[in-house]
């Protein structure tokens, strides 16, 4: 067998690929569901924390800042491992899916809060004062005047961060979630051929390449002209 044949037989083995394609497709669905759950919960929690922080209640703000710092400093995999392998020692069992979802949601929450907060603080003080002096309450000012302006400038950094964290769903394979990577790994060990990994890599590219290109477009579309 020539080197080329060996290469094709290893990474593009049609028989193995056909056999494991259904598993990879199932994993693809699971990755998408996990990613959507993380995005929905993470962004909502991040926005909630940023809005709470705008009320300026000192002890609460310290708590928010610490929580955000914590989940920005810890590697996502460490949090996943702590939840999945650590909690059972204390009698709490989380499934791999829930542990991964919770960990990455907390991470996205932290990064999103930071970005939303920066957006809120970027709205000039005059806007606050003008809105309040027209008779809008604090919450109305925040909701109708500040947040619409703040959210617009948060879109590019938020998109990039969300993409980066969503790619972290591959970490779920470490805690036995049969997502794309989990299914591919299982395929490799059953077939003793790395073609399922090739399929997995292709699946990730199909999922994330459009998102990365979209992120690049959003970055230029929403960029503030200097």
């Amino acid at each position, binding site marked *: 067998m020539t*080197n080329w044949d*060996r*290469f094709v037989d*290893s*990474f593009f083995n049609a028989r193995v690929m056909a056999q494991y394609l259904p598993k990879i497709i199932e994993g693809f669905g699971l990755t998408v569901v996990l990613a959507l759950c993380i995005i929905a919960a993470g962004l909502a929690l991040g926005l909630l924390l940023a809005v709470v922080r705008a009320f300026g209640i000192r002890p609460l703000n310290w708590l928010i800042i610490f929580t*955000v*710092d*914590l989940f*920005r*400093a*810890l*590697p*996502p*995999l*460490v949090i996943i*491992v*702590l939840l999945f*392998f*650590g*909690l059972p*020692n*204390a*009698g709490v069992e989380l499934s791999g899916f829930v542990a991964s979802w919770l960990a990455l949601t907390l991470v996205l929450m932290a990064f999103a809060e*930071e*970005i939303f*907060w*920066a957006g809120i*603080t*970027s709205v*000039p003080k005059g806007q606050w004062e003008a809105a309040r002096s027209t008779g809008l309450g604090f919450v109305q000012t925040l909701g109708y005047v500040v947040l619409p302006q703040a959210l617009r*400038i948060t879109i590019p*950094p938020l998109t990039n961060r969300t993409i980066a964290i969503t*790619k*972290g*769903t*591959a*970490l779920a*394979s*470490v805690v036995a979630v049969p997502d*794309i*990577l989990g299914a*591919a*790994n299982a395929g490799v060990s059953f077939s003793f*051929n*790395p073609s399922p*990994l*090739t399929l*997995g*890599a292709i699946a*990730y*590219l199909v*999922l*994330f*390449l459009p*998102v*990365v*290109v979209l992120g*690049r477009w959003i970055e230029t579309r929403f960029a*503030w002209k*200097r």
Partner: protein
Amino acid sequence: MDSFLDTFFNWQIMQEASPILWQGLRATLLLSALVVPLGFLGGVIIAVLATFHAPWVKWPLRVWVDTFRALPPLVLLIFIFAGLPFIGIDVGAWGAVAIGFFLNTGAYYGEILRAGIESVPRGQIEAARSTGLTRGQTMTYVVLPQAVRNVLPDLISNTLEVVKLTSIASVVALPELLFQARQAQSVTYNASPIMAAAIAYFILLWPVVRLLSRLENRQLAGRR
């Protein structure tokens, strides 16, 4: 509550595990010292190539960068570590991590540095060239120093992510901090070693997070 403390903050178990956790921490630092410069080097190469506007450089480069930005780093790492040996290329855990990070973080550093280079006004380059500096000298002495300064917050932020990302090396059994902590946990049936590792990461990276949060606030606020 007691059982919670006993499981996650068991001082005795943390102390017993401390020698192997120290080894892990040292490996994590060593790994970071290896992959950060490696990724940065990859990034400089990509960013400098991006200054050539010929289509046969531009498009392949864009495909390359987007591919490695779209592929989760763990997938890349496992492909190199577990896939390549099937065709006789076995680079070991350290080698796989080095190659994977070079490709993945190189793409990210490259994008950041490219934005930095584009932020340096063209007049600077023209002025430098007209004083007699060559293209290479202009890049090294005029453009890159300013480019790096302009995107410093993004560079620090990416470096933080790279250091955090070294934890995925535990998946290919490289004995860094998280791997060692899991070893200790599986022997003691107690989560305290993992908690100790988390605390170590936090102590190590918290100052960087604080610094970044200040820089980012200023950057976003300064857009108006």
